């Protein structure tokens, strides 16, 4: 059964029918937002059953659309928190990928700007590595990008999509070692992205992120995870009720190969390891429970089949 990421939008009336249907079909609801009279569900559903969901939700005026970024956590790496980079373009891009289902976090570097003086410290590096992908937003000059990029990439293990002012061919030529994705002509600008051509550029960024993530998904599929992150999410919600009291918008953030649990590590790590998934298999057997560098959260990294010899 192939699960595909989709977004469901519809009225609040009888939306629980849709949730039940998704769960009965073997899908998972990753995020649920209730906005006044509207409900937005970001979920994984079986590929063959999308039509069925469409049909059942038609009387409720529900809409099912593809959302390739659902279930991913993206680091939007901004060079600083100054007016030079915020709110445009950093927030514009972070917000745009959020609309397509991703959970985006803005990672702003303490010493990001400049050419010679640019740097990346260990905390920033570790925080970026906790995500599925990093989107680097750089400036307008190829000289600066060429000079600082090797420093900013040092120690980063996740795929990088680089956005910069020069043309895409130039970016490909100057970045050494090469990164996974490039989007040209998006450097620093100080106006809101609202015109059609600017929105096209945002779509181009999303397309590039999707392409890189697909590649990552394919490589994960070659050595499948021992348990699906979305399934683990439901399980933790069921077994550790403390998560229901967390006021963060996404107390459990689903990633492609893991999960961020927004509970204190010292208090809950042991309890989390002991969560039983199925037939006596504990979470600690199929995943690493690590302290996150983001606040005192817990990071669950699910191990692949090759390491555990189990798939649940």
């Amino acid at each position, binding site marked *: 059964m192939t699960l595909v990421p989709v977004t469901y939008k519809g009225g609040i009336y009888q939306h629980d029918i849709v949730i039940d249907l998704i769960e009965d079909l073997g899908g998972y609801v990753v995020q649920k937002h209730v906005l006044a009279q509207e409900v937005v569900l970001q979920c994984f559903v079986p590929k063959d059953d999308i039509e069925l969901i469409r049909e059942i939700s038609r009387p409720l005026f529900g809409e099912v659309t593809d959302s390739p970024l659902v279930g991913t956590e993206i680091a939007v790496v901004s*060079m*600083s928190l*100054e*007016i*030079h*980079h915020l709110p445009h373009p950093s927030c514009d891009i972070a917000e745009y990928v959020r609309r397509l289902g991703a959970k985006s976090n803005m990672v702003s570097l303490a010493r990001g*700007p*400049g*050419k*010679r*003086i*640019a740097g990346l410290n260990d905390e920033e590096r570790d925080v970026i590595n906790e995500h599925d992908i990093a989107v680097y937003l750089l*400036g*307008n*000059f*190829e*000289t*600066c990008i060429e000079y600082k990029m090797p420093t900013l990439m040092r120690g980063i293990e996740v795929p990088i999509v680089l956005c910069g*002012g*020069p*043309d895409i061919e130039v970016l490909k030529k100057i970045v050494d070692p090469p990164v996974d994705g490039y989007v040209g002509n998006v*450097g*620093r*600008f*100080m*106006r809101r992205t609202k015109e059609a051509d600017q929105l096209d550029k945002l779509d181009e960024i999303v397309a590039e992120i999707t392409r890189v993530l697909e590649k990552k998904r394919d490589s994960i599929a070659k050595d499948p995870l021992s348990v699906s992150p979305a399934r683990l999410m439901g399980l933790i919600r069921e077994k550790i009720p403390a998560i229901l009291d967390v006021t963060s918008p996404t107390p459990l953030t689903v990633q492609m190969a893991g999960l961020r649990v927004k509970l204190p590590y010292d208090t809950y790590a042991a309890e989390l390891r002991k969560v039983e998934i199925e037939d006596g298999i504990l979470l600690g057997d199929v995943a690493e429970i690590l302290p996150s560098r983001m606040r005192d959260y817990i990071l669950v990294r699910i191990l692949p089949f090759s390491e555990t010899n189990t798939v649940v």
Partner: protein
Amino acid sequence: MNAIEYFEVECPEPLGAEYYKQIANDVLLDHNLLRVINKLHIFIDPKVPVFVAVGTLKRITTIVRVRDLANVNPQEGKMTLVVSDETYLASMLKIFWERFGKEKVEQPDRFTVILYDIPTSAQEIEEIVVADPSESLFKDLIYAFRCISPEGFRLKSERFSTEKFSFVASENTLAEDIDALVREKFALMGETP
């Protein structure tokens, strides 16, 4: 609004120059500064790296008076001011309080101010100077150029006078001959520093 007479961005990277022209235009427009700049030449060399902005300013004589933001209607024993622009309302009220006393100034709603029994004519009220935007001009200009220049360029040298200005920024210590570069950029606009 009069357009800038001369506006150029010079850079070894043509695409970078184009982006910075857009950034400079957006920032100056946002801060309402295009009306005070007459000529502007920006030079950026990311290889050095250095950012230079030189330019000339227009003479600003726009003093904001009561008549610019409100209609004064004299009535029996009182004077009613109908405010059309709230921007300078707070400073106008402050001036009235100081001059006539708080008991004689009343503001029943956002757009109305009533002055009771004041020994001044409507014409005199209209001529009261409320604000002088040129006071904060240099502060605004310096802020705008800090926004325009690349963020990493933290070592700055700024010179602002009533007619001309120069703004130089770099991430390295500024070279001693930076004045020669500023002079050269002024010369491109047909000016001297």
